[in-house]
């Protein structure tokens, strides 16, 4: 899979890797049993410190997304898919919460916020490609 790391966006690099792995699992880009690239390969590919990659992998392991296969590396666990989906839901909740609180902070009333959201939902419904599962996904910006 392709990672895109932005060292400047305020999220630490290892966290970005973890998230992107989780989303990839949730999206089915990474399937259970698939082998992740080695620390060395990934660090060279992304041009980031191997320790950072190692830390990301460690977190993935402790979160139960990956498991270490002797002599082969890290593989995705079968239970990972649901956990990733859960992770994505948590993340989405956070994002919705921060958007809503920003709106409220800006002076919008609860009614106006609800109206805004339904408006957006109406616009997007049916126009967003979904992953072949029940979970929603963020808007993808890619060519058809």
């Amino acid at each position, binding site marked *: 899979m392709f990672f895109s790391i932005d*060292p400047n966006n305020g999220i630490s690099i290892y966290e970005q890797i973890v998230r992107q792995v989780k989303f990839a699992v949730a999206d089915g880009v990474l399937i259970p049993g698939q082998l992740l690239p080695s*620390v060395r390969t990934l660090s060279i590919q992304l041009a980031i410190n191997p320790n950072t990659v190692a830390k990301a992998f460690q977190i993935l392991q402790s979160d139960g997304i990956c498991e270490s296969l002797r002599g082969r590396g890290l593989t995705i666990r079968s239970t990972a898919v649901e956990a990733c989906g859960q992770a994505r839901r948590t993340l989405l909740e956070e994002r919705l919460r921060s958007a809503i609180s920003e709106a409220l902070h800006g002076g919008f009333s609860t009614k106006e916020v609800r109206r805004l959201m339904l408006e957006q939902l109406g616009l997007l419904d049916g126009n967003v490609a979904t992953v072949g599962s029940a979970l929603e996904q963020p808007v993808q910006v890619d060519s058809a």
Partner: protein
Amino acid sequence: MNDAIKIHGLEMHYPGCDALRGVDLSVCSGTVMAILGENGAGKTTLIRIMTGFQKPSAGTCSILGLDPTQSAQALELRKRIGYVSDAPALYDWMTIGEIGWFAASFYPEGFKERYQDSIERYELPAGRKIKQLSKGQRSKVALSLALAHDPELLILDEPTSGLDPIVRREFLESMIGVAATGRTVFLSSHQISEIERVADSIAILHKGKVQLVGPLADLKESIAMVTVSLSDPLIALADLPEPSGILAEISQGRQKQMIVRGDGQAAAAYWKEASGVLAAQSRAASLEELFVACTRGDSIYKRASNPGANPTDIRNSTKIEASRS
């Protein structure tokens, strides 16, 4: 982990200027340490002292267990490390292959093969004379020469200055390759984006002293940029409770922007409760903002804590925070 580099109290006085005024630094083996600093901050002087090209006015220095201030040990050291200076010297009339073969005679077996791999990876024509190469290609040759004997420690002095982004990327990959094999890398640079990707720990050198040192990840986690909007520009903000602290601040009209050590959200919340404060937000500080704050200290950014104090060691503050929580 034992330290590959141990520097204590290093000073370098030239008539008319003090290049280094007491530098303390330790680098664990197997990590990548980056030194940040403006031009003239003393980075090159530090590296020259570390490689034995200069004798310091005071202080001790221990690289791989050797003392570079002793001439015999300095020569031994240079054999064991890979050193790429900011203007690497090469014999122009040699071809790329010839210089590899020539350098191989100074090192143990295996140099030529590794050099060959490196040359091929960079797609350099082995038959071309060095004087006909572009700047990027010359730097690649210099780096290949430095890496081909598989040194335990790689010291790079602004290796990517003046190179285009693609070459810089390739350099980065080589450095990471070295780090991935467990070797130590010490580099000085002011390409902050590179450093953010590649460094394990950083040190910021300003006016001959280390202003900030510590693991990069901890640094980024423990430093935040807090923006406070005030109703009245003359309102003074209270100091944060220990162990947090304000590293630098800048005022503009009714807004103040502060680089805060510690939990940014907590600091924002703390100040929000103060009277006259309209709003307080916190976000993670980028390394660039941190660097600018540390180095432009006196002119734009005021130091809230006393300037000239001991360098802020992030590791200590995070440890204390951890123990608190």
